[in-house]
């Protein structure tokens, strides 16, 4: 079991900047998350959500600022399998010749030997993870034959098999069926109780209110950050989306 130490931040990003060949994608962004917290990352397309994820996983280098994961560098977080990234369905090649089992096993690669030979414990971790997302009947199905929801669950299982303490999820609810949505929200509650920290990007305002303790509104930099009940106001949302009112964006009921 993980020990939960509420003194330390799981994610501690200070004034981070990312630019791609001189084009600024994100600047002066801050984020502090503790174990057991779920934070929603909200912003327009191109507001820097994916860049933020990329910076936290070390997929892009930050040009300024500092990122500490469990008090350590991103590099050692990678070595320790601390962060798991669950991609958007659009972000993966669904025609890749690979089965559910193989994808989930990839969650274990970081802790295997150089030939990536699964040990008994790896096989068990993969079995358990697949069971938790309810895909045991699809073990050897190629991912191209899965529905959007099943594919999303496959990648969630990979994150579970990795035993990461931080989960980054890019649009976890987009293009999934009701059953998957329910399963994901149940998993979130379990993750929270296990002391995992979750950062998820979403376009759906209802999901933010439902799951997220905290919300981070960004538009190239942090527009507002804090408890969902305080920060997730129509004014802040309007500012985040460049002056467009939330009613227009999400319909009056949200």
């Amino acid at each position, binding site marked *: 079991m993980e020990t939960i130490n509420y003194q330390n931040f799981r994610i501690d990003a200070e004034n981070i900047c990312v630019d791609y060949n001189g084009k600024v994608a994100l600047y002066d962004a801050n984020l502090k998350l503790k174990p057991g917290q779920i934070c929603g990352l909200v912003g327009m397309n191109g507001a820097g959500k994916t860049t933020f994820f990329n910076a936290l996983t070390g997929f892009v280098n930050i040009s300024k600022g500092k990122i500490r994961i469990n008090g350590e560098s991103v590099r050692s977080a990678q070595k*320790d399998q601390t962060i798991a990234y669950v991609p958007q369905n659009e972000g993966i090649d669904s025609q*890749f*010749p*690979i089965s559910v089992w193989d994808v989930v096993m990839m969650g274990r690669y970081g802790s295997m030997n150089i030939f*990536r030979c699964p040990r008994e414990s790896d096989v068990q971790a993969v079995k358990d993870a697949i069971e938790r997302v309810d895909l045991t009947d699809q073990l050897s199905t190629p991912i191209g034959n899965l529905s959007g929801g099943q594919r999303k669950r496959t990648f969630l299982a990979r994150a579970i098999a990795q035993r990461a303490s931080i989960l980054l999820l890019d649009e976890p609810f987009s293009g999934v069926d009701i059953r998957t949505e329910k399963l994901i929200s149940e998993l979130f509650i379990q993750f929270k109780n296990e002391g995992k920290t979750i950062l998820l990007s979403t376009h759906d305002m209802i999901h933010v209110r439902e799951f997220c303790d905290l919300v981070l509104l960004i538009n190239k930099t942090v527009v507002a950050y804090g408890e969902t009940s305080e920060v997730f106001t129509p004014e802040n949302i309007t500012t985040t989306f460049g002056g467009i009112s939330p009613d227009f964006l999400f319909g009056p009921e949200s």
Partner: protein
Amino acid sequence: MELCSFLTLDAFITDPLTHDFMRKALLMSSLVAAVCGFLSSYLTLKGWALMGDAVSHSVMPGVVVAYALGLPFSLGAFIFGVGSVALIGFIKQKSRVKEDTVIGLVFTGFFALGIVLVSKIKSNIDLHSILFGSPLGISLSDVKQTIFISLLVVILLSIFRKDLMLYCFDPRHAKTVGINVFFLHYLLLTCLSLAAVVGLQSVGIILVVAMLITPGATAYLLTDKFDNMTVISVSSAIISSIIGIYVSFWFDLETGGSIVLAQTFIFLFAFLFAPRYGIFKLKKLFAGYKS
């Protein structure tokens, strides 16, 4: 007499084997096919077919320069192969020109440099044999070098098989769990350059390009499992080499071209009759007969 040997299958297969140059050609082409077929499944999945095209052309000036300086061909080819990819990346990043255009202009530039150098530097390098290969006239030192480099590439690819698969599938996850993506990227490029060298010495650039692209595409149509894809890719490359060489022997055809055509026919067959992804899905046809 000629007709008789045609009629017996035994003679059809064994006759060519009595010639030393045919045995060598079969060995060399199969080795190149194995290496390229292995790489091909990664290139197909990574969307790097054009990159394979570019690297195999770009190694040419490297080979000529290495020849002039008395260095191993593979060294020159490696430097220019990886250099071309670095240059492609650099130009793409620093200009608004799209990637496929950049790839095209860099490799044609390198290739032209190679042609100019060949004509300027007095050497025994023959342009025609670089382009179309001379599988029937391979020297003993070439055979040794080909065996060595082929084994090296196959061993490297086998060791990092799963990591390379992950790198092609989801590089972001690879990076997140601490796998050295930078290393894998250059490993793939290095193997690509080495495959180009091996091919260039024996079967020619055009054939290397075909061998890097077609077997992977064929295998991709035939399976949904990565390991199977590699096996099918390698075996279809080797089988088409053998078919091509036999056909070229018996019908007196250009060897390199025959090998590529054999590959193309295998691809077409998969394209039409692959069980799941073919135009006339064989599985369905058979299911129709049973019911």
